């Protein structure tokens, strides 16, 4: 049975999409149950794969139509799930289930709901397919279905002009990216006349010809367009902003994680090029630039989801930097941050969705004081905001600190310094969102805003708890999930060995050496449980002293009726229109770097052609770089 698990995980989602397309509008409950069953089954199948792959450490391979390789020549399409793809598969299928659960209530007010679910299942199926496949052209097809479905979902609210415009821009840029990936696939096929990743990896083992380098450059740029790395990131904010929140959660949760998996698979396993310092430098430089520009643009936004979009670009910059370091610690940091990013970014997009569901707008200048009307959403937002900006007890802190430590040990001190400043700016922009949307004065039109229904809050709570658990027990997360994945990344010989039969790999890899076992004292993180005990004792000691000290809660005077005593002090004025929020925060920073912010504002001018030009220029620059430096 374990042999068929990969294909089952993918097929259940495709079949679900097919059945939902059949049901159409007729029966809502039936459709929801089908969607839930499909996503849940796929998650269960992925979980069942955990024991054989990470538990016993072997790799499941599955040849479509049982076309085994003939005389060491792969002709059929092979699926291959090793620790790395299973690691990605786990948290991706989890966020698919949570997003499905969330969208039942969230999409209720929209029209054309069944089309939404068809596209939703197609996208998730294609991402799962992309992660588990071991075949190059199959990866291209899955990426194409994913882009296709995300464009349709971006333009889902077609009564809004912005959604349609974002959809068009996304498909224009996305199709350029996909064409680059297809071109690279064709060139690799022309060189090796096979499409199986393992076989290509074997033949590519340290004999790079010009054509393979050309394919490498195109492949990296193609995936960079999918991951929205900086020069190609212009489309992301528009797409994330206009798509429904449960979908933008998937965009930032699984779509760009799949692209990161693509880069990892291509650079580490297929090309084994990560020991070349030039490739490492390219990725680190690209990651740092993405990180910095993403967060500085986010500071200047005054729409909630657009701000979150720029943040997911900057967090992906962290992941790319972590991966680019190519040291054991760096890859662990990068992978752990990819997992954390899916959790807290998904959480924040769901909060944005909850705010949109309750108030109808996500414009920070109009919102205010929602914490009183939506206490749970506000608390969840605070957990998400603190974990993304790396405040200790939450999970963002662990992975960010591993990346700082790894980059500083690898000798890239400026990268560490920029990463730290970006993390502080992330905290700044989320304080801005908290102040303008959740705290402060409640505007009159949101007077009777209600908390979102339970079925939307359950996924949010699950993710919030995962964020906290990820922060408190990092050593268990890394031991069971991330270290095996990092080992798999650094040791591609095993990947080739299992896929193509026993002695195939030994022909190319003279030493089947194992990757350096990543045993490190978990850098930068003391046993967090002892910390918690410490916090607990202090809290206990403090409340004891406080209760004795006469400021027990009886003394807090609080009342809800209109009494001047409980008004906010606004130099005597009645503080109705006095909400400070949105774009009038951080005057000091914006004024100090006004030239930089004006330049950035001019570059993001919204014209599709300029975006396409930036993609083409990136391709040119990367090509030049790869040809001159990578040997």
């Amino acid at each position, binding site marked *: 049975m374990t042999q068929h698990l990969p294909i089952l995980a993918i097929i259940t989602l495709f079949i679900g999409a097919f059945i939902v397309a059949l049901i159409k509008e007729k029966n809502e409950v039936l459709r929801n149950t089908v969607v839930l069953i499909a996503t849940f089954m796929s998650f269960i199948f992925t979980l069942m794969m955990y024991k054989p792959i990470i538990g016993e450490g072997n790799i499941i391979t599955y040849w479509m139509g049982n076309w085994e390789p003939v005389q060491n020549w792969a002709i059929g399409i092979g699926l291959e799930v090793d620790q790395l793809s299973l690691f990605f598969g786990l948290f991706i299928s989890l966020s698919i289930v949570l997003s499905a659960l969330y969208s039942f209530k969230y999409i209720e007010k929209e029209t054309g709901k069944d089309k939404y679910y068809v596209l939703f299942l197609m996208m998730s199926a294609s991402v799962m397919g992309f992660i588990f496949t071991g075949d190059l052209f199959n990866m291209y097809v899955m990426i194409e279905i994913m882009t296709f479905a995300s464009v349709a979902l971006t333009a889902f609210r077609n009564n809004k002009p912005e959604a349609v415009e974002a959809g068009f821009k996304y498909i224009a840029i996305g199709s350029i990216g996909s064409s680059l990936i297809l071109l690279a696939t064709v060139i690799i096929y022309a060189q090796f006349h096979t499409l199986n990743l393992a076989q290509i990896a074997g033949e590519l083992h340290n004999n790079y010809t010009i054509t393979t380098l050309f394919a490498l450059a195109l492949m990296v740029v193609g995936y960079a367009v999918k991951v929205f790395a900086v020069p190609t990131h212009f489309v992301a904010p528009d797409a994330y902003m206009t798509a429904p929140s449960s979908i933008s959660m998937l965009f930032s949760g699984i779509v760009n994680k799949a692209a990161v998996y693509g880069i990892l698979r291509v650079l580490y396993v297929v090309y084994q090029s990560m020991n070349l310092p030039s490739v490492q430098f390219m990725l680190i430089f690209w990651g740092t630039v993405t990180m910095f520009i993403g967060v500085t643009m986010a500071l200047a936004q005054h729409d909630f989801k657009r701000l979150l979009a720029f943040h997911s670009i900057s967090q992906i910059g962290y992941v790319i930097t972590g991966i680019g370091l190519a040291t054991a610690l760096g890859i662990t940091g990068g992978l752990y941050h990819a997992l954390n990013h899916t959790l807290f970014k998904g959480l924040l997009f769901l909060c944005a969705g909850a705010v949109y569901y309750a108030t109808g707008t996500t414009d920070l200048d109009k919102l205010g004081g929602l914490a009183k009307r939506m206490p749970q959403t506000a608390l969840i937002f605070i957990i998400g905001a603190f974990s993304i900006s790396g405040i200790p007890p939450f999970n963002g802190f662990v992975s960010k600190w591993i990346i700082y430590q790894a980059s500083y040990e690898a000798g890239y001190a400026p990268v560490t310094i920029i990463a730290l400043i970006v993390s502080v700016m992330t905290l700044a922009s989320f304080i801005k969102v908290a102040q303008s949307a959740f705290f402060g004065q409640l505007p009159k039109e949101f007077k009777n805003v209600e908390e979102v229904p339970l079925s939307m809050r359950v996924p949010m709570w699950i993710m919030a708890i995962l964020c906290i658990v990820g922060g408190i027990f990092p050593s268990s997360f890394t031991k069971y999930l991330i270290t095996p994945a990092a080992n798999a990344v650094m040791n591609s010989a095993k990947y080739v060995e299992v896929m193509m039969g026993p002695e195939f790999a030994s022909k190319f890899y003279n030493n089947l050496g194992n990757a350096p076992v990543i045993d490190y004292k978990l850098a930068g993180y003391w046993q967090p449980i002892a910390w918690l005990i410490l916090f607990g004792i202090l809290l206990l000691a403090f409340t004891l002293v406080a209760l004795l000290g006469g400021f027990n809660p009886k003394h807090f005077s609080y009342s809800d009726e209109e009494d*001047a005593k409980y008004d906010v002090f606004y130099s005597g004025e009645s503080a109705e229109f006095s909400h400070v929020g949105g774009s009038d925060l951080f005057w000091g920073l914006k004024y100090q770097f006004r030239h930089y912010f004006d330049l950035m504002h001019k570059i993001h001018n919204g014209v599709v052609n300029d975006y396409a030009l930036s993609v083409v220029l990136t391709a040119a620059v990367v090509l030049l770089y790869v040809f001159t430096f990578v040997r």
Partner: protein
Amino acid sequence: MFEKLIQKGLEKSAWLYHLNTGSCNGCDIELVSVITPRYDAERFGFKIAGSPRHADIIVVSGPITSQSRDRLIRTLAQVPEPKVVVSLGSCPRSCNVFNGSYCVEGPLDKYAPIDVSIAGCPPKPEAIMAGLVRAVEILKEKRRAMK
């Protein structure tokens, strides 16, 4: 348990909040001169607090002009108990030369009971300090009454 300490605290560190309801600034500069090195009210713990929420003694100066009337009422309501209202100079006491004018809304005790009033136009800094010391005693009585 801390009651004795709180009483000592109230006595030794009362914070002022200066509320200018249209005064000619004669009393204001006198009040500020109280915290200059020569008179130095800070050695008794007096400090001018930024917001009414932090204040114990509210020093009102100036006849209550119509503009500042409802602002006065709102700010006075926002000061936490135990609080003491001190009228500085004769304007808040009786609107001085301005009483009967179209824009003066009458003495302060129409809006809040004046606990200590410091006469003088403007009162000397020593007089202000003596008045504040008197106000601190009233503050302690109010705290005892509040318990």
